């Protein structure tokens, strides 16, 4: 089993296209994993566990790696988080568990994410099934959306004996784990294998069904004992600037999706690319473009470095990938004749702070300039599912700023049968996969309590999501 440690050396010019889209972190070898696991202090009531929104018993799963009980380690993880394989890859661990690790005071924090991936890879490789469908309790639940929130809720419910059907609008299940997380962070297969695990618990996943179009909400509410909405968010909103419809202006999420589902060689990336928006999605689009071969990739952001929403480690990563940043720059027009030729921008200055404390950018008169480019990628957030929220309003479901409003202890909406979780309720705080997983768990426990009338056997793990430690 012993493998040699292979340092990550990313030299694009030495790698072919396929290689550039391999997982960025190589898996830990057995020896690396055991050495790292033995560094863990096995704290009691550990801060890492508190910082994990799903409260995985981290010291225990790490201890089990150190004793060679990797199967038991994987079980400990999955008991708290059915999407442990995805989370081990996508979680902003620096902000969560690793950020809370006591070892960071005079040392390096334990590599919790990569150890978790080690245990998850082991379980996947050996195809170990840890859980079974619970004894049927006669209740039926519909889950809308098969992203992390939906899958987590569906899986937990199946374990508790519910008959669960999950409706997914897309061709493949998995939500953004399948379509939105860059492939060198999480390969599509990992997400699909996780979907398969949930299906193995008896959950029926029906893809290609757009709820609200192919099936009416009223029918679901009538036919099922409870409905969980985990529909996430929509595509990138419009910039509302002239030239936005010129070919070569892309929706960032569509761009990422292409790299997840298409042959890499068939994807077109410009040679000079402007990415608009400096959140994590912007960073993803920019780094993908670099890896696809774009020579110059610039992230254009109207505020300054200090206001940028991307995590610091993501920013560092982008810089290392050769992405440049233009701060205090606001796009005002896409220029071009039938194809993108440039992005016209105006310089900004920071004025007085707004309500959120961020200083408001103000245009500097007469400072317009055109940045030559042949592709513009929009990455300025995600649209709300307005039509769905409106449709639900008819059943008394309340919303706020386009997000479904739920009680944080139960994830229940104003309608007693309708629950919701994941990005579609994340009006406040950071939207993340692990928070969505926890919402699914909370909702499953609440549905169990409401219908079966007992406290869920899993309840000890359930607590409302904490915002990531900053």
């Amino acid at each position: 089993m012993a493998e040699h440690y292979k340092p990550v050396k990313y030299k694009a010019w030495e790698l072919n296209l396929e290689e550039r889209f391999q997982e960025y972190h190589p898996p830990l070898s057995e020896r690396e994993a055991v050495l790292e696991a033995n560094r863990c202090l096995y704290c009691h009531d550990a801060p890492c566990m508190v910082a994990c929104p799903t409260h995985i018993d981290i010291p225990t799963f790490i201890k089990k790696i150190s004793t060679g009980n990797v199967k038991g380690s994987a079980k400990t993880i999955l008991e708290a988080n059915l999407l442990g394989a995805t989370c081990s890859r996508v979680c902003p661990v620096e902000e969560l568990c690793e950020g809370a690790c006591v070892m960071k005071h005079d040392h390096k924090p334990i590599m919790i994410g990569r150890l978790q991936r080690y245990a998850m890879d082991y379980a996947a490789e050996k195809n170990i099934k840890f859980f079974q469908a619970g004894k049927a309790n006669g209740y039926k639940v519909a889950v809308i959306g098969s992203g992390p929130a939906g899958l987590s809720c569906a899986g937990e419910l199946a374990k508790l004996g519910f008959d669960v059907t999950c409706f997914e609008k897309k061709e493949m299940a998995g939500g953004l784990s399948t379509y939105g997380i860059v492939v060198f962070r999480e390969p599509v297969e990992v997400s699909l294998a996780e979907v398969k695990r949930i299906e193995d618990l008896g959950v029926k996943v029906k893809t290609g069904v757009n709820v609200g179009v192919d099936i009416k909400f009223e029918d679901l509410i009538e036919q099922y004992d409870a409905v969980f909405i985990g529909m996430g968010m929509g595509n990138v909103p419009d910039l509302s600037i002239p030239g936005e419809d010129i070919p070569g202006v892309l929706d960032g999420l569509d761009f990422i999706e292409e790299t997840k589902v298409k042959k890499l060689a068939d994807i077109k990336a410009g040679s000079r690319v402007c990415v608009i928006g400096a959140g994590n999605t912007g960073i993803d689009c920019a780094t993908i473009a670099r890896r696809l071969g774009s020579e110059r990739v610039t992230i254009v952001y109207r505020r300054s470095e200090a206001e940028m929403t991307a995590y610091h480690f993501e920013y560092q990563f982008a810089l290392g990938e050769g992405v440049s940043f233009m701060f205090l720059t606001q796009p005002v027009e896409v220029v071009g004749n039938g194809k993108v030729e440039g992005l016209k921008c105006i310089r900004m200055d920071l004025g007085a702070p707004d309500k959120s404390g961020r200083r408001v950018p103000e245009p500097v008169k007469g400072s317009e300039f055109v940045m030559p480019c042949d592709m513009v990628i929009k990455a300025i957030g995600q649209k709300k599912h307005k039509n769905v929220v409106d449709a639900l309003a008819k059943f008394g479901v309340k919303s706020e700023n386009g997000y479904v409003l739920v009680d944080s202890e139960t994830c229940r909406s104003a309608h007693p049968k309708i629950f919701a979780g994941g990005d579609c309720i994340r009006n406040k705080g950071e939207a993340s996969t692990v928070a969505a997983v926890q919402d699914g768990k909370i909702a499953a426990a609440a549905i169990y309590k409401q219908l079966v009338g007992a406290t869920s056997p899993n309840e000890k793990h359930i607590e409302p999501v904490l915002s990531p430690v900053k």
Partner: protein
Amino acid sequence: MANLEIDFCGIKSPNPFWLASAPPANSAYQVQKAFSEGWGGAVWKTIGAPVLNVSNRYGTIDYKGSKIIGLNNVELISDRPIELNLREIAETKRNFPNNAVIVSVMVESKKEAWQEVVKRVEETGADGFELNFGCPHGMSERGMGAAMGQVPDYTCMVTEWVMEVATKPVIVKLTPNVTDIVQPARAAVRGRASALSLINTVNSIMGVDLDSFEIKPNVGGKGGHGGYAGQAVKPIALHLLSAVASDLEVQKARLPISGMGGVETWRDAVEFMLLGATSVQVCTAVMHWGFRIVDDMIEGMSNWMDDKGFLTVYDFIGKSLPRISNFGDFDLGFQTTARINPDKCIHCNLCYIACNDAAHQCIDMKSLQLNGETMTALQPVVREEDCVGCALCSRVCPVDDCISMVEIDTGRPHITWNELSKSRPDVVSDWDKMEQYRKEANIHIH
């Protein structure tokens, strides 16, 4: 899931993991918490004669960044009143009827005293006794503990006193601080003990402070020998266990053995059981991490058993015992040689310097061609004809599976030293004859 239940001379336990008689098994609160976290049994902290404790009681050995690879203590038996202990033992057994509750006892060397404590303990409903003949400090100076265990006749005598009145199984706990552990083990058998347990702690001094010149642990400026336990004593415990478990007299009496001394994980427990232990006891690891470690012990052992196809622990208890042998019966014709895998070698050259300075000078640093390219670093290569197969290089190599010890056929006769001494007495007593035999047998020592 595999079945971990054991029947230890009539004492039933849901799994082989017991708390050793020590601080973690000091009170009802602790033992009941441990049971609810999964421990199968507990040997209550030794009760008996009145005592007074000192502080500091513990010293530890930390090794290159790891805390507590060994722990030493100068603690005595329970310093809580005996009445209180008996009440709590009764309560614990009542609340946890399916867990093994065993009471460790030690009183002064008087028949009445032993028989009286045994009767009082029986009233609690506990499942059995452990006789503490091992405490190496404090109690031994008062003629108890190791002072009993180090004299086989005393061991036998006290065991007999106890057996006269006990209706529950009696385990005799042995001290490692003797020249031959088999002697007190046989004495316990003669005294009709129901079972054995080992090891108690090993005599030790943990160290000296370079600035204050104090002994570790420091008791108000003084220090003295204490009992050593934890991972560091495991090899000693395994040896003593195997010596007792493979002794014919002990085997004939069919006494189950409870093994301890450095058990920290399910892997350690499996090793003790492969060498004949039916249950294992744990102290130091619990003192370091808490009761929660039992979760991984149970799960890890059970997963391992599933992998190996063992349905119950009895499928593997004692499985490696027949391999315990003596030097005189080892095969002199079995020969290995070291082989270094150049693909894995990281060129730390530790094997070279170890063989050169401390073994047989048979690793050469060579300029090698690998995959057609000449390597920049010199590569250590074993001169196999000169390698004696001592395995030192493979032990110092920091890379897993880089240096393997490979069995080779030298055409030497497969004979043991004992056989050779019998068939060729001249060879084993005369260097010239030995030289001649080596030539004959193709044994070449570089």
